[in-house]
């Protein structure tokens, strides 16, 4: 049955998959009634050749290959994007990070209403259908939690270190369009945005941001925004700490002073020098991370394309530098893809690894001239007992002689 050609194919497949090798591809009916191809083990004795067996038929919903294992890492209140396993800069919607304060609510779209009231000419409620009638806007932008930093161990992937950031193409209506519709009265300077989760999450938003690039988003990557990201509509504030982009938004009150909600006082604030507590730290500072090679990947001696993403909440990335000798020398990486305002931006650097142990690092510069700092610089600026938010230090990866890559913790 087996000629030398197919024997070669099977052993290469065994090499690639390791362990139990797929020997045969056959059609079966899945539990949903969909006809799919599946693999049988070698011991079944059937030939592993998809050119000999009819493939799966078209279906209503597509699937990932069963060979791809892409998973977020959930905790009680958050879930991290596997940055090291992704390509390009768009995060697949079901892998977008999560951070919730009382879980994900179930909201029916038909009964959904957004109330806008306060210092306005005419308080209004908008249904989801109403929101979709307004002139719409689509943009690609990142979202990031201001607590998106962990360190301390060598066995940490980009997902573990900073997996609370993702990027989508967002579609919705500009908040300025809605505020124009209701009419904002003079004297207004702050908004209270309120969500309809069990935390009834609230944040105060300066009117200037509301009129700038704030959006009420109802679609994500071509379809309705996901429940985990705020279905049926959320506030989206490009470049700002994720907590301000209130999900499942139900109310906006226009006022003339900040409301001093629990999140913006006792939580999303950070201690800085002199016993002070920094409040309303909205902007996400520029940051970069090498996503390949990174833990838990492994490199071979020879040419390696170092890849990663860089982003800034203050605008565009203008430069990313890479070091392949633990920071002694820095070289400019290329930015081959789209360079967008407040968006994850690809960087690449072609490197010949000679097999010696070393450290590779990246640092980003944004359009304000801000250069991503080291941890030492952050401590020098904010004090030893600095708070844990808005930490964006340069991340180093340690490359061992055997090609294994580990995180090199800052301290």
């Amino acid at each position, binding site marked *: 049955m087996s000629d030398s050609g197919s024997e070669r194919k099977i052993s290469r497949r065994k090499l690639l998959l390791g362990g139990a090798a797929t020997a045969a591809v056959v059609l079966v009916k899945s539990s949903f009634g969909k006809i799919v191809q599946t693999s049988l083990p070698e011991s079944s004795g059937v030939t592993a050749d998809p050119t000999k067996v009819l493939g799966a038929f078209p279906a209503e919903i597509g699937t990932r290959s069963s060979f791809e294992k892409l998973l977020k890492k959930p905790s009680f209140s958050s879930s991290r994007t596997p940055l090291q396993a992704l390509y390009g800069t768009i995060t697949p919607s079901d892998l977008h990070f999560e951070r919730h304060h009382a879980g994900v609510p179930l909201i029916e779209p038909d009964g959904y209403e957004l109330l806008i009231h306060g210092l306005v000419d005419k308080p209004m409620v908008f249904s989801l259908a109403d929101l979709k*009638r*307004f002139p719409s806007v689509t943009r690609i932008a990142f979202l990031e939690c201001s607590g998106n930093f962990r360190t301390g161990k060598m066995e940490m992937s980009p997902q573990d270190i900073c997996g609370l950031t993702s990027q989508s193409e967002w579609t919705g209506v500009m908040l300025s369009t809605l505020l124009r519709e209701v009419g904002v009265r003079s004297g207004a300077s702050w908004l209270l945005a309120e969500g309809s989760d069990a935390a009834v999450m609230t944040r105060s938003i300066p009117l200037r941001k509301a009129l700038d690039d704030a959006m009420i988003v109802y679609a994500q990557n071509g379809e309705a925004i996901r429940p985990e990201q705020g279905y049926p509509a959320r506030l989206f504030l490009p470049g700002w700490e994720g907590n301000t982009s209130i999900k499942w938004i139900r109310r906006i009150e226009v006022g003339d002073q900040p409301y001093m909600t629990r999140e913006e006082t*006792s939580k999303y604030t950070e201690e800085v020098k002199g016993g002070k507590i920094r409040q309303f730290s909205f902007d996400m500072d520029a940051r970069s991370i090498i996503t390949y090679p990174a833990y838990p990947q492994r490199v071979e001696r020879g040419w390696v394309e170092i890849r990663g993403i860089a982003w800034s909440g203050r605008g565009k990335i203008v430069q990313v530098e890479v070091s392949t000798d633990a920071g002694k020398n820095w070289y400019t990486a290329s930015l081959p893809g789209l360079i967008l305002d407040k968006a994850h931006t690809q960087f690449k650097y072609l490197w010949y690894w000679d097999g010696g142990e070393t450290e590779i690092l990246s640092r980003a510069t944004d359009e304000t*001239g801000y250069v991503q700092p080291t941890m030492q610089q952050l401590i020098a600026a904010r004090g030893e007992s600095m708070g844990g938010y808005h930490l964006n230090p340069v991340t180093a990866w340690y490359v061992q002689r055997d090609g294994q890559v580990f995180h090199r913790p800052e301290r």
Partner: protein
Amino acid sequence: MIRKFTFPLALSILIYSCSGVPNTDQGADTNAQVALHKEAEENWPERFGFGKEASSELIERRDIDISPDGKGLPAGSGTVALGRSVYLSKCVACHGTRTSNGSYDRLFAIDASKVHPDSVAKGKRTKTIGNYWPYATTLYDYINRAMPFNSPGSLQPADVYSLTAYLLYENGIVKEDVVLTSTSLPRIIMPARRRFVEDDRRGGAEVK
């Protein structure tokens, strides 16, 4: 693009500095109407006419937030004694007591010397209401909307006022015989308020 009116802006900065509300140049914009029209396309109508006017009944039902000046606080009052008993029945499992920890945030320090923000303690102090929260009204707002965790929004005003009184007492802010009302609560000045400063990061060359 947002026109700056320097005189009203300077005046509002002065007022904000005196009141203790963080001064910010991000918020004050006395000419919102001009800013709103800046991006309107040339062919847009003045109003699209989508949506419905909100009834005052809906607004009253939804408008549950409490401002730092006390706006929004309902009629009613609370005491430390009542707050203590509500806390023991609804809060202690998650938030712990003076002598033991619960599963979630500590609301007052076990060590009484650590409740005052000026107390010197080795290493990091636990963040508590007494040493970190800048406004007492936030307690009412948050407990009312989000607590207890497994049945949020189920407490009556008397319970929320009382829990607020009890927590402020345990944090060394008020006396045990205090009666909190919509007038007395916003008058409480939290010790941590003067620690709060506005974010001064602006990007650029300096790391802050």
